[in-house]
């Protein structure tokens, strides 16, 4: 890979005495969709959260467009402007309406005039099919709607990378589809995405590459066809036999 947009090298992470990531190496190319699967507690989310420094690695480094996140001279807020994140529990801001949720960062961080930010927000709400919810309060939305607003909020910063941390795990089953279809559309437009998920169908259909993690290590990686049809590692086989 000549110019990876994300490069992770020798990443270790512990919470106290409990080591959750061991020597993670990973490269993600521009426009690539990488899906991370694995059992609960395997370190998938922690790895994802290291990519925008919501968790600070103990050793190793993460490079976003060549910038080291561990370098004290790197301004982490500038890196985060280019890396959107969608959370399992949406994390919409309940003290503002949908529109303000989306325009907050473009106005405060990018310094856009309000009209420009609002135009962008409306465009994104149309894209996720929630134009009529612009003035709604986050608490009045269903889970699926809230997650689509959260995706629009992240996209409003026009990020180069999108991180998804189990975006459908907190949703009722009938709402999973609407969120996945927004993510598929995003992938087809060429967004670079790293997606932690339990949705094997999505991994298979949308992923360019799939990583299987267990006990803090990337056990196996490959194309969806390779990993789902012919897993080489016994642990991958055992996991897939349980979830497929």
């Amino acid at each position: 890979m000549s110019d990876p947009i994300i490069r992770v090298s020798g990443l270790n992470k512990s919470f106290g005495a409990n080591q959750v990531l061991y020597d993670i190496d990973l490269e993600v190319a521009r426009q690539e969709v990488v899906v991370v699967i694995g059992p609960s507690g395997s370190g998938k989310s922690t790895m994802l959260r290291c990519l925008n420094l919501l968790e600070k690695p103990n050793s190793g480094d993460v490079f976003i467009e060549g910038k080291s996140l561990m370098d004290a001279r790197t301004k982490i807020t500038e890196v985060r402007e280019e890396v959107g994140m969608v959370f399992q529990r949406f994390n919409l801001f309940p003290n503002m309406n949908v529109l303000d949720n989306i325009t907050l960062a473009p106005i405060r961080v990018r310094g856009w005039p309000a009209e420009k930010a609002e135009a962008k927000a409306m465009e994104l709400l149309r894209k996720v099919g929630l134009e009529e919810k612009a003035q709604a309060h986050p608490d009045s939305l269903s889970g699926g709607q809230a997650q689509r607003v959260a995706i629009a909020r992240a996209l409003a910063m026009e990020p180069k990378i999108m991180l998804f941390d189990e975006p459908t795990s907190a949703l009722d089953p009938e709402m999973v589809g609407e969120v996945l279809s927004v993510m598929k559309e995003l992938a087809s437009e060429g967004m670079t995405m790293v997606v932690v998920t339990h949705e094997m169908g999505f991994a298979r259909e949308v992923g360019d590459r799939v990583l299987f993690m267990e006990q803090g290590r990337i056990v196996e990686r490959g194309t969806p066809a390779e990993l789902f049809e012919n897993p080489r590692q016994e642990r991958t086989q055992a996991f897939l036999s349980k979830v497929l």
Partner: protein
Amino acid sequence: MDFKFDIIRDYFPLFMRGAGYTVGISLLSILLGALLGLLIGFGKMASGWYFRWPASMYINFFRGTPLLLQILMTHFILIPNILGKTNALAAAVTALSLNSAAYTAEIYRAGIQSIDPGQREAAYSLGLTPFQAMRHVILPQAVKRMIPAFGNEFIVLVKDSSLVAYIAVPEIMYWGNAMKGQYMRVWEPYFTAALIYFVLTYLLSKLLQFIGRKV
């Protein structure tokens, strides 16, 4: 039992002036306490021990020693050392402010820490600085949760301000004691003082309920 209303009438103007002192001292102390408490509360949440440790000690000291003792120490030690001589009113406001800062610090801390960490993470992930995240996301939510606790603290402060009668600040309790001394009677002065405090705190709690609904 004979309850002499005429001596209450004689003292009524003094009690009213005393109520003015009580309200004034309490208002000033809750405001100063809230400002100082903000510093101490954030100090206690800071990552560096050189902020956390002094803030912690401050809170432990003022919550762990009697308010009466704090008032006496302020009156006889702290204020004379700053002004050269003591001043009862300054000592009262200083002691009550220092004391309520310890409690308001914990109100700030509890309010801010009650906000789901996911809110801060979402703000950070959008590129907001810690200050922006606090200003636009955390504080607006936290302040709403702090209001009832602030109301309680204010009511406690109004009642506790009666202790400054010990250093001869002419507030409600001071005139109650004066009246007791003059007439050698206990029912009338204590009931009058209790009634005034009750009316003050009752009105205050209604006002706070109203504000709480508005926010």
